[in-house]
């Protein structure tokens, strides 16, 4: 009851002072206003100081931070704003403040002194004090006690998300580049997987396989086609190992043409090979059945061809091909793998 009476007196006094000021026709005046005089604890309100002054005069505003009581907290001081006045030659300068209070009960925003200079010296005008009533949160005691509320989720801004987005984009780019490079590397791999060459000299392979073919006695058992297929396979593999010509994927004519351009310079050996391959083609593709003597002689020709074209290295390091002395004291058979 007492507080309400005091508040009424203050408001009346403010009104009176303002009225008296106007009556006296003073060119300088200051007004303090708030959004509301009754707030809940922690609520933020605007406090405006509006100084009415001549256009040419300068009024010094007090430092707001130091002037407030402990009950009032200044959150933010906005830049001053100059407004037009209704009277000519006068302006209004407004200082807007954002304030709050965390103490319940009646609090007072104290008066502020605004100084200005005139011909006789320095004078000041004083803003009226403003009363504010801070209410606490009402507790409904009839209801049960609730648990503590968790922190409220603040909405995410784009600026907060931007670093994460950039990091995700960079990661995606790296993954894409990795996949692209892997695919590109895969694409440039050789067309077909070439079977690896046996790790032995070509003629060693050829002699061993020809011996095995001889032991199998294929043509003697009526498997002439298989016999010639196997015979040409051995010779083609030998040529591939010996001269590094892709004989397995070439036809007879192509193989013979390739050999003409290779280091094979033994015409007799070339003719032997040509006869074997062409006869084999006839057996394989034209159902031809050579006489038994021919089958035997083609195998012998194959042995002779390998003997004539095998790779040998003489003691002095000079390489040559073909038959060498059997005692081999000064002959060293060199692996093709070392030469290629």
């Amino acid at each position, binding site marked *: 009851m007492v507080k309400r009476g005091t508040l009424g007196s203050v408001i009346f006094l403010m009104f009176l002072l303002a009225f008296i000021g106007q009556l006296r026709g003073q060119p300088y005046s200051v007004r303090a206003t708030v959004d509301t005089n009754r707030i809940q604890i922690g609520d933020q309100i605007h406090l405006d100081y509006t100084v009415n002054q001549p256009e040419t005069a300068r009024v010094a505003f007090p430092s707001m931070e130091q002037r407030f009581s402990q009950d009032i907290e200044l959150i933010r001081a906005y830049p001053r704003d100059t407004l037009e006045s209704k009277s000519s030659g006068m302006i209004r300068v407004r200082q807007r403040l954002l304030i709050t209070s965390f103490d319940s009960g009646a609090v007072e925003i104290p008066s502020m002194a605004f100084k200005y200079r005139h011909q006789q010296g320095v004078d000041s005008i004083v803003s009226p004090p403003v009363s504010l009533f801070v209410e606490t949160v009402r507790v409904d005691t009839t209801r049960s006690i609730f648990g503590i509320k968790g922190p409220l989720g603040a909405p995410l801004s784009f600026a907060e998300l931007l670093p994460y987005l950039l990091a995700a984009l960079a990661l995606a780019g790296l993954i894409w580049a990795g996949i692209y490079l892997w695919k590109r590397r895969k694409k440039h791999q050789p067309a077909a997987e070439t079977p690896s060459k046996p790790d032995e000299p070509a003629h060693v392979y050829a002699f061993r396989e020809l011996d095995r073919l001889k032991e199998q006695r294929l043509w003697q058992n009526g498997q002439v086609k298989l016999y010639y*297929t196997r015979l040409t396979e051995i010779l083609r593999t030998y040529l591939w190992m010996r001269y590094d010509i892709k004989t397995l*994927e070439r036809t*007879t004519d192509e193989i013979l043409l390739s050999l003409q351009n290779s280091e094979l310079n033994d015409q007799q050996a070339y003719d032997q090979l040509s006869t074997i391959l062409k006869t084999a083609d006839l057996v394989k593709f*034209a*159902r031809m*059945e*050579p006489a038994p003597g021919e089958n035997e002689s083609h195998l012998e020709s194959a042995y002779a061809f390998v003997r004539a074209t095998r790779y040998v290295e003489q003691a002095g390091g000079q390489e040559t091909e073909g038959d060498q002395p059997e005692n081999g004291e000064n002959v060293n058979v060199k692996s093709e793998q070392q030469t290629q």
Partner: protein
Amino acid sequence: MNQTVNVQELNERIRNESSFVDMINMEMDKVIVGQKHLVESLLVGLLSDGHVLLEGVPGLAKTLAISTLSGIVDARFNRIQFTPDLLPADLLGTMIYSQQKEQFMVKKGPIFTNFVLADEINRSPAKVQSALLEAMQERQITIGEETFKLDQPFLVLATQNPIEQEGTYPLPEAQVDRFMLKVVIDYPQLEEEKLIVRQNLAKEFPTANQVVQPDDIIRARGVVKEVYIDEKIERYILDIVFATRYPQHYGLDHFQGMINYGGSPRASINLALAAKAYAFIKRRGYVIPEDVRAVCHDVLRHRIGLSYEAEAENVTSEDIVTQILNAIEVP
């Protein structure tokens, strides 16, 4: 040396039946300088009853080769210039009203002949192309209510220009598959071109003599089908065609994303048939891997659908066929 009777007999027959091939080659050589591959491909098409699509820039003797061949064979020849305003009726024929007989009568189109040169086939819209390709497939034409069988031999030789693609109607993949061979013709060699110039500046342009009858061709076609093809060669053909469909199974993984579709069973059939015809031209009664390789590019190049990835990498169907041939083991 003993030979299986069938192949020996076949070889003998083929030596007799294929004698006209040398005569055709001789007569063609009088008029066409170089272009051996073109002439061979025309013969393969003629002997295996397959139509041929020729692709090459203008002035490479495409039309001259075809007209010369028809003159040598004593066959009727019509040239149809495909244009954007051509109608199916202009090609096949139509029904016209005879005022004298007071009834509709059939007016046969230029397709009723032995050799048809469809010049610049891609200049006409799809409906005209369809009409021609249907006739190629069915070998008969229906006008009104009447169906007419086309004369034998019936061979369509179409040309298309690889340049000037503006205002053209490219043949759809399904229709281009009807051509047994797609032959790409290149420029002649320097010495060949010198002869061409001399030949054209001479007082008289050489002409080919008629040395073969259409019946010889029809009979030869029957012999071509009898040419022996071993199981190993069949397997080789299938490996090649399957490699166009599943390159990854043949160590050609890098082509996997580049081929949208590979050769159809028609490709396998045509490859075998063309290889037989090639063996016949070489006067052999059996097919060897060389025959398959000789016709492989012409049979397969238009039957492989390339992806955008292949186009971006500048990989052509030609490259794919070449690499397949280099990757598959020859029997």
